[in-house]
């Protein structure tokens, strides 16, 4: 059995930032466990730019963003294991891990940081009817093939879902010589960033069909075509609006799901909306000493926010090791109300808050000119006016601790109100 102060599960952006930050905060005995052949996680296949605007004040590609952290981790002498799978976490924070060289290995951490990221929703999860031929890929799998392995997944492509990976892949495949015929999106708005719609679709005259869904896949062996149709307000296809496209490939960009099978094995409480662990201000889960950060907690829109959140987790895990994390004192629950889908963290212990209480959330629809209203036990303590809110973009609100210091606890809520109401 190996013993470490902190074991970080996952060597993507979240795990890297958390490990580095823990080390900076005085913990030396740290191990990062990564299941892939190299560190960096999904960033290594995200070769497009747009990463790092907040953290580094420059526009980096995914691999560049990852490499900055990997180099820092190596410079600091933090140990890591590659090609290593965590099979199980028990509540006493011991892990069963496995790889080719060590075989089966038991590792115990005084603290654990969960940074496993997320996975893509698949065809089955959205129950698309039709045949099951070759040529149906999730956008991320296609991205790995094209960008890292160097293989094309198809020649004529339709993309279902307008999340950012789908938009980015529309451009990538077009540049690589494929014909991307259309992008269909179930919702009346895109799940991706506006700049991606302009730069990835409009630049190449790829049509985006909002409020459309896939109703059929044709082809016995390889995809031969697909049919999309417009949907009504209940998201049911409207007869007569069908459009057929001949294509050999269907890419799915229909959402991401936090990967929490290990969290479940450790008995950690999960939030049914985010799909990730319930966490407090320290990014600590319902099991003492097990922290979580990044897309395993909730799916982020920008990696910069993952880094920020993971640094917080790393810092607090270090505090936990040094026995500087407070468990008592006033604590506040958070709750999403009208217009807000969820809030992270779920609980705030004021004693541990560094400067401001930072709440992260997503809205449930597109809104223009609305107020985001924070209430403490029903009393408005902050109002932020927003010109534009969309579900594809994560929002954050900072609450000065002065509002909370005097209180002995309570309920923090956020809701949307029409401006002027």
């Amino acid at each position, binding site marked *: 059995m190996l013993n470490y102060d902190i074991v970080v599960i996952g060597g993507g952006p979240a795990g890297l930032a958390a490990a580095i930050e823990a080390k900076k905060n005085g913990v030396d005995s740290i191990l990062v466990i990564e299941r892939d*052949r*190299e560190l960096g996680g999904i960033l*290594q296949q995200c*070769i*497009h*730019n747009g990463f790092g605007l907040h953290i580094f004040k420059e*526009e980096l*590609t*995914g*691999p*560049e963003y*990852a*490499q900055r952290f990997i180099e820092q981790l190596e410079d600091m002498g933090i140990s890591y294991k590659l090609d290593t799978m965590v099979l199980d976490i028990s509540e006493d924070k011991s892990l069963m891990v496995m790889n080719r060289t060590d075989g089966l290995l038991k590792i115990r951490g005084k603290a654990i940081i969960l940074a496993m990221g997320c996975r893509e929703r698949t065809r089955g999860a959205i129950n698309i009817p039709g045949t099951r031929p070759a040529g149906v890929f999730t956008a991320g799998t296609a991205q790995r093939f094209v*960008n*890292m*392995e*160097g293989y094309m997944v198809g020649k004529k492509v339709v993309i279902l879902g307008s999340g950012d990976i789908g938009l980015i892949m529309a451009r990538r495949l077009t*540049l*690589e010589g494929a014909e991307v015929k259309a992008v269909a999106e179930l919702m009346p708005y895109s799940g991706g*960033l*506006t*700049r991606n*719609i*302009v*730069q990835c679709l*409009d*630049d190449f005259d790829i049509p985006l069909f909002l409020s459309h869904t896939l109703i059929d896949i044709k082809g016995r062996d390889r995809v031969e075509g697909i049919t999309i149709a417009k949907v009504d307000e209940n998201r049911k296809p409207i007869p007569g609006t069908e459009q057929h496209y001949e294509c050999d490939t269907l890419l799915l960009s229909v959402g991401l799901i936090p990967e929490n099978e290990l969290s479940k094995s450790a008995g950690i409480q999960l939030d049914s909306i985010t799909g990730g662990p319930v966490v407090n201000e320290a990014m600590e889960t319902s099991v003492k000493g097990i922290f979580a950060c990044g897309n395993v907690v909730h799916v982020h829109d920008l990696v910069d926010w993952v880094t920020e959140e993971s640094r917080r987790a790393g810092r607090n895990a270090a505090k936990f090791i040094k026995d500087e994390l407070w468990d008592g004192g006033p604590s506040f629950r958070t709750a999403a109300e009208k217009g807000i889908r969820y809030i992270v963290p779920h609980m705030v212990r004021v004693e541990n808050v560094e400067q401001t209480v930072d709440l992260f959330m997503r809205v449930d629809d597109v809104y223009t000119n609305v107020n985001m209203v924070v209430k403490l036990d029903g009393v408005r303590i902050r109002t932020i006016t927003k*010109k*534009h809110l*969309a579900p594809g*973009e994560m929002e954050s609100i900072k609450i000065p601790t002065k509002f909370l210091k005097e209180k002995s606890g309570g309920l923090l809520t956020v809701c949307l109100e029409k401006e002027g109401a």
Partner: protein
Amino acid sequence: MNKKEMICIVCPMGCRLTLQEDVNEEKGYKVSGNQCHRGIEYGIMEQVNPTRALTSTVKIKDSSLNRLPVRTDHPIPKAMLFECMKLLNHIEIQAPIKMGDIVVENVLNTGANIIASRSMA
């Protein structure tokens, strides 16, 4: 061109800009629909000389992966994206390579270099 519609991508607002030729304006165009001054700048640039950063890959020999991710170190004219992609088809790099190493210098006389966006052993 007389009138042109475009979406501003400077911030998430996504303003719908209308660009109109106007000899009375300093830069020859009048921009409307913008909610801030950055929209004007974007609109005119997008009309006069639209540029894009290009990210792609090139073949790499003797590495654990088949492709090396690369990018332009400055945006290049939008109209040259495909030509540049075509040029990258012919490039094969020998590992090891360091992030930031120049893969193609002054690509297609744009003044931009193609650089490696990661190190590969």
